[in-house]
Structure formats: C-alpha cells, structure tokens
C-alpha cells in the first residue's frame, strides 16, 4: 500500500517514514505543501497523510484541492492544534481522520488500516480459500498454519488480496507497493511473487497466486 506523507518537519517525517516502511508500506515524503499536492495528484497513492502547517501551501489547502481531484483518496490529517474547532475545520476541509501531535505511532498505524479498509470490508481479516491475512496482527495463515512473510511480501499479498479475483498488472503492483524511487526496469516483482508462491503454495494442492502471461498476477480460489 502506498502512502504519501506531506510533513515539513524533517524529524517528524523521518520517524513516520521509518515506522511505516517497517510496517510494510511504501512511503514517499514531501516537505512542501504545493509539491506534495502535485505528487498526490500524479501518483496512485492509497492514502495521504498531511500536516496542517506547511510551507508552500498549507495542509488545509492541500486537503481541499486533493478532495476536488481525488474524492475517494483517504486523507489523514496531522496537527499540533487540538481545539475542537480546529478538528472541525480539518474534517470539513475533507480530511477523513485527524490525529493530534504528539500522537501514538500505534494509533497512527491503526487509523491508517481503518482508512484503507474503508469502503471495502469492516474487518481486519482478508481471506481467499484457506489463506487468511490478519491486518491487525500483521500475520498470515494458510490452513491455520502461520506463514512468516517479509514486509514486502506481506504488502504484495495484501494488495493482491484486496483485489482478489482481479488481474493486477505489474505497473499497478509497483505503483501501490513500492515508493516513487522504485526502478521499474527490474524484475523485482517477479522475484517477490516467487518468494510468496514458495511460502504460500508449496505443499498444497491448490495454488492461489496465478500468473497471467504477459499481463500480471491475480489471486483467486477457483482455477
């Protein structure tokens, strides 16, 4: 899942980037409001985190513009302002959620998960056949058996599961699982899909990840 973080304070941005990356998200950071807005409009992010006080264009302005161009994009607002009126202003500008600094990083993660699953399912568990992914615990089970996945593997599987029974192109995959620095010329996706297949499908009668030749991958329970 790709996240854009627009936060001017480099130290704040740095730990959020580190924490989110370690949690399996592909994160881009912008320290400037207007540049952040351009990035958010061009790249297919799954969620944008915006700080209120920003140089260039302030968080509210970014939020409003982004709401116009991408009405469905989840937006999480970060701010040091904690007045009820500030919250209302933030939410009215189009933010889906609001976190006041200093926030708990675990809460930030939980809210990101909530926003991500909004409009899909009200559960933290994604499943196909006997494969289950618990997003809260960040654990994957196949037939009740725990499968240890790396962050990237987890992210790819999550993206596939969120779009199960649908063809995912390599481009889509890179856009949602890797951040903007990803070199699209590599075959890294195929490598990771191989890892995932080994871990998930080995020793089972029913492979779940399928290659659509020349197009991409899909996850489905019917052959």
């Amino acid at each position, binding site marked *: 899942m790709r996240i854009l973080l627009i936060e001017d*304070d480099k*130290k704040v941005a740095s*730990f959020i980037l580190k*924490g989110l990356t370690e949690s399996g998200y592909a994160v881009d950071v912008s320290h400037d409001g207007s540049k952040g807005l351009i990035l958010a409009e061009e790249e297919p992010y799954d969620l944008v985190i915006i700080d209120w006080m920003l140089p260039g264009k302030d968080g509210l302005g970014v939020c409003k513009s982004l709401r116009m161009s991408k009405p469905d994009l989840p937006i999480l607002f970060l701010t040091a302002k904690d007045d009820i009126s500030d919250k209302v202003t933030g939410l009215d500008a189009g933010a889906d959620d609001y976190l006041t*600094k200093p926030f*708990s*990083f675990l809460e930030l993660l939980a809210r990101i998960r909530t926003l991500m699953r909004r409009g899909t399912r009200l559960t933290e568990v994604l499943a196909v056949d006997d494969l289950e992914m618990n997003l809260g615990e960040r654990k994957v089970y196949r037939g009740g058996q725990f499968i240890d996945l790396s962050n990237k593997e987890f992210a790819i599987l999550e993206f596939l599961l969120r779009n199960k029974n649908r063809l995912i192109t390599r481009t889509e995959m890179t856009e949602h699982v890797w951040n903007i620095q990803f070199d699209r010329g590599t075959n890294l996706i195929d490598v990771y899909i191989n890892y995932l297949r080994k871990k998930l499908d080995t020793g089972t009668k029913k492979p779940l990840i399928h290659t659509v030749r020349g197009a991409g991958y899909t996850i489905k329970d019917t052959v």
Partner: protein
Amino acid sequence: MAVSLRTRLVVIMVGLSLGMAVVISLSVLLSFRHLIKQHLLEELREEASDFSELVDFSGGKILIRQGADWLEPEHKYDSDHARYMVITDTLFNTVQKSANLGDRELQYYFDLHPEDHSRLIDSKADSIHFVCFIRPLTASSGVRYGYVLSATNTAQTSTYISILERTSVIVVVMAIFAGGLMAVFLARRITRPLMAIESIAAGMDLSSLDQRITVKSKEAEIKNLTKSLNQLFERLQRSVRQINEFSSNVSHELRTPLTILRGNIEVGLSRDRTPDEYVSLLSDLLEETMHVIKIIDDMLLLARADNRALMVKREPIDLAQFCMEFKKDWEIFCAAKKQPLTCTVSEGIRVEADRTMLYQMILNLISNASKYSPDGSEIEVSVLRTRSETGHSVEIRIADHGRGIPSDDLAKVFDRFYRVDKDRSQDSGGIGLGLSITKMIAELHGGQVSLESMPGKGTTVTVFLPEIFAR
C-alpha cells in the same frame, strides 16, 4: 452595607428641599407676623395719640371734648374692624369709652400696670383676641393724670396668619414632593449610565472581552469613565490575546519535539534493533530532549523577565577584554560552517551589565548569524562608541553576509516564536525565541536592539547599551 447611590441622592435632595422650604416658609411667616404687629401698633398708637388730643386736665379733673372722633364707625360699631377707645384716670377707672364697647370694660381684658411709657399689651385670655395700646396722659406740669387705651380685635389678622401658616405647610409638603420627584429623576439620570456600565462590566469574562461599553451620555464624567473602562478592556484583551498566543505557541512548540520523541521511541521499540540502531536512536532522542530543555529554559527566562523576577547582576565590564575572553567560545558556533569570526573592539569601552546575560545575548546573535549565512562567510562583531544628543552609548554590532530577512518579516522578528522560515525546518535548530531574548536582555540593561537587513546581502543586528566611565 452599601446604600444605593440612587437612594442616597433621593434622601439628600428631599432633605435639602424640605430644609429650604421650611426656612423660607418660617421666615416669610415670622416677618409677616412681625409686620402685622408693627402695623397694628402704629394704628393703635395713632388712635391713642388722636384721642389724647381730646383730653384736658384742669383743677384735678379730666375734661374730655366730645366730637366727630367718637362718632366714627370704627368707634361706634362693634365689628372686626372696630377700634375700642377708653380714657381712664390713673387708677384705670373709665372716664369715657367708645360706644362699640357697650357694657364691656376694656381694662378687664388686660394686665394693666401704671406705666411711664407707651406699649402694646396682649389680652389675658387666649380665647379673646384683643391687643391694646396704652398711652399715659400727662399734664403740662408733668403730672400723670390718666391713660388712653386703644384696642382692636385681632381675629382677622389671626385668620390671615393661620391662612399663611396653612399655606406654608402646603408649600413645604409640595417642596418635599417636587424635590422628591426631581431627585428621582436626577438620580435616574445619573445612575442609569452607571448601571448600564455595571451590567456590561459584570457580564464580561475572558471570552467576551471584545465587548465595549456604548453608553450614550453627555456628562463628561460618564464619558471619561466609559472611555477609561473601554481602554482598560482593550489592554486586557490585548494581554489575554498575547497570553493565549504565547501559551498556544508554547504548546505547539513543545508538541513537535514531543511527537518526535514519542514517535521515535515507539518505532524504535516496535521491533528488535541492532546496538548501532539503538545508539543512533538514543542520540536522536537526546538531541530532541535538549531541544525541549532549550525551549523550556528560554520560555522561563522570558516569563521571569516579564514578571520582573529576573535577577540582573550588574558589574562593570570592559568590552574589549570581554570579547577577547569569549571569542574562542563563540568561534565554536561558527566552526561547523567554517565561518571566520572577527572582533573589532575600541579600547576602554565599559558597560555595566550582567556577564552571563551579555554573553548569552552576543552568543544568540552570533549563532543566528552563523545559521543564516553560507559556509565560509565572515561574521563580524564590532563594538564602538557613539555620541548622540542623549549622551554616550555603546553599539555592539553583529553583522553577517547571509541570506538576510525579507522586509515583510522585519517587523515581526522580535516577536516570540516568530520564525522567518515558516517551514520550521529543524535544520536551523531555532525555536524563534533568540531575538526576543536579545531584546529582553538589552532592555533590562537600559538599552535597545535594532535590526537592518538586505535580502541576499546580510543582516546587521545592533545592540545599544549605555556606556559607563571609569571613576
């Protein structure tokens, strides 16, 4: 217990009008009575004098001429206007009396004593309203041989006087009434704006300090009171706004480093790390903690200065020696960006200052200069003496060749937590209090700070301090 101004005004004014009405009525009444008495006396005296002309004394006998006088209506008929005349011998035996007395003897009504002079006598009994004038009759030899008594009924004048008395009472009552009415009206007029002011002031609290008193009044006192109160509210509102801004700034300024601390700790704890990662995390945390401490220290310093609770230990300082002593310390702050620091100080310039504060102030300015200047650019500290009309002053200048300050920001750079770089990039490490503290220290020492800047060329901060001379 407080008595309402309205009540007090009414009481005072009613009392005043009552007093005045009573005094005026009494004096009118008394002088009227006196006048009537005077008038009666004159009339009776005249009558007595006229009748004394009718009497002769010869050979031990009193001879009375009869004539028109005895026949005049006031002597003939008994009425309210009647004048009773009696001529007596020295023992008050009647020799002749006027017809209107009939059988009555005038002498019975009065306490008569042989007198050697004329006088007016009131009647004995209260129920009989007579006054009598007694005039002795004296022969040419000087022997007293009798008296003329002239008397009149005072019923009518009593009626006049009692009417006057009644009128006076009515006047007094009316005066009380009118005074009371006027008092209520005036008291209302005076207290109405006061009560309006009071109700606005009483309803005012921190959230409604933007209210103003809008009482329309022509009275200068009320106008001035309204104006003063409104100015007070204005000042209060400004202070409260400043305090609110300051505390929201403080909370905002602390929130960011606390976010960084909390976030780094939570992310750090979220999984196992290598010792190197822990070391790097801990040093980041330490740096951020120092930042929090710096914010709190600076805020406390300013708060103490605001409350005048800051101790300034003044001592004479020779600035040339001072700069020599601390140049090495200051250079450390310029070393990271390889910026040369030059100190140009005229000899023998002395100020009276707190060493620590002076050091802190110059350090703040040097560190600012270093922060906003490119690598390798020179930072100049110069101390010189200037003479102006107001006397001698010392100028401490810190000049850099950095990026300067946009003219829009110049007016605000001394505001607390104001930063020219709005992105609050922590690269500069600033918290926006440095110049506020510099200004505060300069002002504590009876000086001031000025700042000149050319965007792209550099900034010069000048601190003016009063010079002292060696004794």
